[in-house]
Structures are given as C-alpha cells and as structure tokens.
C-alpha cells in the first residue's frame, strides 16, 4: 500500500499539476482564450451554455464537500494527504466553472440564483446521497461514491464535452482537459485504495452497492433530462468529426448522445466496481 500511496503525495501532485499541466494557464485555459462570440451573441446558445455549466458547478461543489469531508474519516496519513490534493483540485474545478459562468455574462451577484434556477433536481439528489455517507463519516462508502461513481461520471461527461467543444470552443475544451487530468488521478486512487478496504470489510458491500444503485438512478435521470426536449444547435456546425466512443457528436441525435454517454459511464462503473470487488447494481426503477 505504501508504494502505491507514494504516487499520490503532495510532492508528486505539485510536480504533475501546478508545475505540470496547469503551468501557464489562467482559470484552467490559455491566458488569451475567450468564449466564442457565436455563443455570447446568441441568447439561446448562451443560456444553454449557462445551464450546462451550472450542472458542472453543482457536481464540483458536491465533490469539494465530499473530498474535504472524507479527510478526517481517512484511516491513514497518505490517504489524508491524497484527499487534501483532491480537495484543492475540486475547489479549482468549482472556481474555473464558476468563472465560465461569469465569462458567459452571469453577474456575480446573480450567481447563486442562477445556480438554483438551472440546477437539475436529480443531480442535487445524486449529491445528497453521497454527502449523507460523508456526513456520517463512512470513509469506505464515501470514497466509492466520490471517487468511483461521481468521478467516473464527471470524467466521462468532461470527455464528451471536451470532444464536442474542441473545434467550436477551444477555450472551454482546454478548461476541461485540465479537469479530466485531475479526475483520472482521483478515479485511480479510488480503485487502488478502496479495493483493499473492501476486502477487509466485506460486510459493507450491500450498503455500498445500494448507494451506487441510488446514485446511478439519479445520474441517468439527470442525463435523460439534459437530452430531452429541443436541443440548441450551434450556429455553425463543426466541420470535422467529433468521435466519442464510436459516435460522431457533430451529427448525433440527442437520443444517440444520451445513449453513448450512459453506456460509456455504466461500462466504466462496471469495470471499476469489479476491480474493487463490488458488483454493479442496476437502478431499481428504469430511469
């Protein structure tokens, strides 16, 4: 365990993150990059961008509360130190996505109202399920919920958004690429550290699997909400291919996008849960 955890030291984090892929960035993007005028000048597109960014802020606020809350419950110092780096990563994500809302024209005084207005209720419930475990000081369930379920979902959503925005909005795509690099580290820690703890505490499996089932239900309901109803199309469709796990996002229908996103996240869940000795549980009611 000690060797694996040494890969998650503060020193390593400083070398990889602030002195690595974040060097020369401002709020996670190039100092001279801006939101495209095509979004800023089109009310419908701007509102759609605000709404989708609010979901990222809600998810990252949950991740910040969860990772900081898990530090005191962590059973060893290397885990506490890793969670400290994750806490700051998540705070950075809250900051860069909040900054994007400001870049899209949200006034600072209107931030909380905007978040409340656009936050998907299913995503809020998803967060509540996780934060209840964290609030109870349940390290094992908290790390599975945070670093496997929440981070697994965030990782795939960010990848989809990055692919879709590479050509249309390089500024946002760059912001996302830094957060993806962070999430990859977080998911890796969850898999590595939790596997041994699950083996030590097999009696916890049913409770953790139930939490995963509930979180998955609310996640799929959030995806269904996001892709239902009329979708806002970019004024100028991308000219190149935006391939995401075999689906061209430039030409895909909302149903196809929802399907590829859900299938990719669920596939990741199954693989990662299996690696730590847990069995994926389908949601109780089809979402």
């Amino acid at each position, binding site marked *: 365990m000690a060797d694996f955890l040494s890969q998650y*030291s*503060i*020193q390593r*984090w*400083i070398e990889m993150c*602030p*002195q690595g892929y*974040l060097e020369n960035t*401002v*709020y996670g993007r190039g*100092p001279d990059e801006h939101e495209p005028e095509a979004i800023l000048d089109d009310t419908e597109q701007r509102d759609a961008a605000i709404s989708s960014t609010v979901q990222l802020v809600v998810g990252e*606020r949950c991740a*910040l*509360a969860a990772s*900081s*809350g898990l*530090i*005191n419950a962590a059973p060893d*110092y290397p885990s*506490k*130190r890793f*969670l*400290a*780096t994750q*806490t*700051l990563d*998540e*705070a*950075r994500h*809250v*900051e860069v996505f*909040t900054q994007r809302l400001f870049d899209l024209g949200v006034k*600072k005084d209107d931030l909380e109202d905007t978040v409340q207005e656009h936050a998907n209720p299913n995503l809020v419930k998803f967060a509540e399920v996780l934060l209840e475990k964290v609030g109870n000081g349940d390290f094992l369930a908290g790390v599975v919920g945070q670093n496997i379920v929440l981070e697994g979902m965030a990782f795939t959503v960010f990848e989809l958004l990055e692919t879709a925005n590479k050509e249309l909005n390089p500024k946002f795509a760059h912001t996302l690429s830094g957060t993806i690099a962070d999430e990859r580290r977080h998911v890796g820690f969850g898999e590595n550290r939790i596997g041994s703890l699950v083996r030590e505490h097999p009696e916890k499996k049913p409770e953790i699997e139930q939490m995963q089932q509930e979180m998955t239900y609310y996640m799929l309901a959030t995806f269904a909400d996001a892709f239902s109803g009329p979708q806002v199309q970019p004024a100028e469709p991308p000219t190149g291919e935006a391939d995401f796990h075999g689906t061209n996002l430039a030409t895909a229908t909302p149903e196809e996008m929802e399907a590829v996103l859900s299938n990719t996240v669920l596939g990741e869940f199954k693989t990662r849960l299996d690696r730590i000795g847990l069995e994926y549980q389908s949601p109780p009611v089809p979402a």
Partner: protein
Amino acid sequence: MPSDEDFDPHVLAEDAFIEEVQSFQFWFGAVEGYLTGQSYGHDPGMADPPLDETQRERLITTLCNYCVGETAALEGASGLVSLAPNHPAKIFMATQVVDEARHLEVFLRRLNDLGVEDTTTEIVRRANPALTEFKDALMQLVAAGDWDAAVFAQNVILETMEFTVFRSHAQNADPMTAEILEGVISDERRHFGFGENDLGRRLAHDPEGRARLRDVRRDLDGLVLGVFEGALADLEVPAADRHVLGRDYLETVERLGLTQ
C-alpha cells in the same frame, strides 16, 4: 485575472480583494515562487551534514510536535471547508488544506531523513500534551459547526503559534530544516492573514460575537501557553526571550479586540 508580477491586490475594492486573494488562482501564483524546483520543501541537491546525537534527538521531538500541529491544521481546515459561509472562503480553505498536508508531508519526510521509520509511534510518544489537547479543542469547535470560533482557534491561534515558533527555529536550524521552514512560514502568513481579515470584518459590528470569542480565547489560553512553553523549551530559547515571541499572538488578539 491580473498577470502582472507587480500586481497589488490591496488596490482592489473589498469584495474584489476577497475574491482575488481567496482564489485557487492566487494561491497558484503565490506558491509557484517558493515551491518551484523544490523537492519535499528543499533544494534537492542540498547537502545535509549529520547532526550530533543531542541535536538529532531535539530535532526529532520538535518535528514530531510540528506534525501534531500540522495534523490539527489539516483536519481543522478540511472540516472548515463545509462550514465556510461563502464560496471564496471555501476555496481559500481548500488551498489551506493542501498547504497543511504539504507541511505534514515535509516534516514526516524530514523525520525519515533523521532515521525515524515508525513516525506514527514516535509522534504519539513525543507529543506535547498541551498541543494534543489544543487539537482536540479545535476539532470540537469544528464538529460543533462554529465557523467563527474554529477560524479563531485555527487561523489565528494555531497559525500564529506555528508562525512564531517556526520563525524562531528557522534562525538557528540546520540548513535543510531551515529551508523547509521558510516555505512553511510563507504559507502560514497567508493563513493567519485570512483568519484576521475574515474575523476582523465579521466582528467589526458584532460585539456579542467578540465577547463570545473572548471566552473561547480564555478557555484556550492555558493550552496556548503550554504549547509555547514546550516548543520554545525544545528549541532552547532562553526563558527571558520567550515572552517576546508570544508578542505576535498578543498583538493579533488585540487587533481583533479580543483582549480582556
């Protein structure tokens, strides 16, 4: 986002100042200067001549107590993220969490350099009881969800104590320990700056809150004295000079209007 190296956040209006100095972006710029090229808080090529046995023993005891203080700060700051009354304060606390974890890491690493393998046992064995008791008191304030009292205990009392002791130690420590301490001191300055600024604004028009924190201070004063005495004795600071070192703490408390 100002990128000019000469940028001074103090020229900003109050709200903009708070948002600026409590951001990840500000932290990022601040630590870049003194952590670049360092490994575990010091120049990786730095020579580390062996200490004599008495010096080594004293340093191990001192570092073990630094680890107790930094663990308190790490656990306190992480608990304060969820209590913070606004998002800039949450983000600042998250930067403090990683600073405290870094301090813990560099002190543990220094203990390893000095030949301590089982750091956990050694820390428990050498911990100053007053410091352990202070840590428990801080965690009770955090668990009670009392932001003002916990920030006072953590970012004013604990951070000022650490700042004072580390600064005194850095003046006559071996070169490697001194360099590690210099980086830690730079972080602590940011932390108690936040505590004083946040509490100063909140208490300015809150005489009841100030009276409450005076009580908290009174409850903790005995422990603070015990921590200072233990740390300064370990560092062999002459008894006559010790009251001078407590001055930073007393001045801060006075600025906040928390003297009797």
